[in-house]
């Protein structure tokens, strides 16, 4: 009980000291947010620009059909984001629009479209194209083929139902109303089943990367699921310099000597410092990932428990490494610089400097992949990426968490052996 109260006192004192260190807070919290945003922002803007370019195909549309298929095709064409559709009253008007270069193509739905489909007779939709823009014209043609295929399925199915019903003789005694109701009901059932099959196909083609892992979500989201956690890990490890220099400052100023004369164990003093910095590390992750989610729609995965486990493991590894540096360095200044250099070097090797997706060394083969596995950064970023981009479960990232905790324990034990309290 006394030990716990002393621990809380030390933690509170440490947090007060950290809060007063504005420069340190800037490095731990502001810098990763700024760097993450500076890289993520242009990516988002570029993606949006690309998206806008794809929808800027101007097409004219003339619907001469008064039946349901003509209406359905107009609705489908207008729902395609790559096309900007303008309705015309006449074919001449649409042709003129293409001739003047105002539209890339003009689509003309013939007046007998619905009737012909109903009669199960061949019918065509005319696409007039601008000869000076053959690529755009072929895109519009391709899109129209897709639309017509969809609509044609309705016609095919309806025709099939009618043929079966007529051949079976069921409708021989039925009135016209009963016949239409039966056809509509059968069509509804079939199309609902068809829709369901499209949503949940029995056989599906799935994209996989070379490692056999399923790629889900947008590519940008996946990149952000690497970018922001990598920055979080990199800046968590800047705590190393802060932990070590603050501990050595306390020894240099005689505070540790004063505490040695007080009824508090050295273990409690060290543990209090570690807990305080672990809280700061966890806050770094929470702040950065929350902002990334809010501003850039970064995926967070499906396992908050997994995120908590990995965050705590990284925080423990970073603070324990800080103790190790304190045990080996001679002065606070030396400890601070060592922590900074270690932070950059280990982050670089471990793939926690996310300049581009090519720096994901923890997924690489070869030397960089091997070196990455030697750093806590590599395991931490791998675990975060697995949770956030690949929807890994907490159990699936336990190996990385265990490695991080093992490294932390090793750092801690060496530090305990080497550190001179007074």
């Amino acid at each position, binding site marked *: 009980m006394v030990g716990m109260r002393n621990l809380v006192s030390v933690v509170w004192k440490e947090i007060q000291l950290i809060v007063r260190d504005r420069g340190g807070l800037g490095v731990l919290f502001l810098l990763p947010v700024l760097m993450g945003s500076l890289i993520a922002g242009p990516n988002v803007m570029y993606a949006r620009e690309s998206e806008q370019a794809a929808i800027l195909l101007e097409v004219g549309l003339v619907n001469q059909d008064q039946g349901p298929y003509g209406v359905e095709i107009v609705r489908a064409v207008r729902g395609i984001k790559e096309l900007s559709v303008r309705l015309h009253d006449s074919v001449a008007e649409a042709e003129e629009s293409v001739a003047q270069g105002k539209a890339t193509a003009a689509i003309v739905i013939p007046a007998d479209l619905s009737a012909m489909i109903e009669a199960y007779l061949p019918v065509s939709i005319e696409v007039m194209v601008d000869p000076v823009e053959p690529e755009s014209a072929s895109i519009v043609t391709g899109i129209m083929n897709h639309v017509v295929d969809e609509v044609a399925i309705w016609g095919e199915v309806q025709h099939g139902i009618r043929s079966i019903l007529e051949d079976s003789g069921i409708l021989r005694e039925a009135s016209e109303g009963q016949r239409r109701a039966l056809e509509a009901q059968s069509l509804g059932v079939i199309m609902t089943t068809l829709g369901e099959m499209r949503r949940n196909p029995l056989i599906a083609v799935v994209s996989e990367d070379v490692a056999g892992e399923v790629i889900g979500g947008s590519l940008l989201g996946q990149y952000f699921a690497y970018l922001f956690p990598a920055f979080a890990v990199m800046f968590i490890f800047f705590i190393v310099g802060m932990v070590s220099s603050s501990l050595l400052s306390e020894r240099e100023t005689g505070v540790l000597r004063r505490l040695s*004369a007080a009824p508090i164990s050295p273990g409690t003093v060290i543990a209090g410092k570690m807990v305080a910095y672990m809280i700061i590390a966890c806050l770094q992750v929470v702040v950065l990932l929350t902002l990334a989610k809010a501003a850039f729609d970064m995926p967070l995965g499906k396992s908050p428990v997994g995120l908590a486990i990995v965050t705590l493991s990284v925080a423990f590894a970073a603070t324990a490494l800080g103790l190790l540096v304190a045990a080996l360095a001679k002065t606070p200044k030396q400890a601070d610089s060592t922590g900074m250099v270690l932070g950059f070097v280990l982050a670089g090797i471990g793939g926690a400097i996310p300049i581009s997706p090519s720096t994901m060394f923890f997924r690489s083969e070869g030397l960089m992949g091997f070196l990455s596995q030697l750093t806590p950064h590599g395991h931490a970023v791998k675990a975060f990426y697995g949770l956030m981009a690949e929807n890994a479960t907490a159990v699936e990232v336990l190996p990385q968490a265990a490695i991080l905790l093992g490294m932390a324990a090793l750092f801690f034990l060496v530090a305990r052996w080497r550190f001179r309290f007074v």
Partner: protein
Amino acid sequence: MPVILEVENLVKKYGDYEVVKGVSFSVQEGEVFGLLGPNGAGKTTIISMATGVLAPTAGTVRIGGYDIRRDARQVKRLNGLVPQDLALYPSLSARSNLEFFGRIYGLRGRELKERVEDVLRIVALTERADKPVETFSGGMKRRVNIAAGLVHQPRLLFLDEPTVGVDPQSRNHIFESVMRLNRERGMSIIYTSHYMEEVELLCCRAAIIDQGQIIALDTIKNLIELLGGGVIHVGLPRADDATLAELSALPAVKEASLLPMPGAALAEAGSLATTLDSQPAPAGSIVQVVAEHSQQAVVNIIGYLNQRDIPLTSLEILEPNLESVFLHLTGKKLRE
């Protein structure tokens, strides 16, 4: 008076190097006890062992009846340590520093607040309590340093060179605080210093320490009386055993001996000494004469030297104080 601190045969070794060599002394409840000695004499090491900061190589320390090794936690609750360094958190306010050190000693809530206010009053820093310590002057930082050792109301306070680097005003304030703590609250205080004036002013008894050993321990009065009527340093071109014997036999002289120190030290005696001239002391021998009555002894010595036609190269009369006691006992100055 009951004994609050008992130190017996305390030894501290680092490898083969013995820093503290079998020190023994005791301090009574309510006493201000001085540990006087030059830098490196072993004062801080003795205090570190008495407060549980360092483990003794041999010997025992008992505080309030508790053994420092067996009952460390109880002993540490009775002690207060004001280290020589400014052992504070500079970016925290004086109040936050004191609250932290108070909590470590188990103080909480209203009691903690009252104790912090109390010690801030003692060191006269109530008005600056919420300012960061790093904005304080050297003297103010020293006072916060002392307050941090007092916040839990220790029965025995160790003050390790508390006035190093302090301006005269703050130094006086520290003296007043120490005297009030002892007089009004009955606090026992161990005061280490290499400033003999401080120990003379504040302490009832003192131990003089040199090279890890206690070379004298008594009341301040008795220590000074070791020198009788004072000490005279007589500079001669050379002094043989016959001269020393004849000087010892002069009226008003207790003893005469050859001082094993370079003559140059005479020129640095400062305000405590009266020299015949201001020139640097010439090379030769310095004879240390312990007098029963210094003025009469000087007359007799000069008469003797004239009679024997021995030239006098320098003459220094040391006032009887702890500085001259230390010089007499060790042949060294405290601040060398």
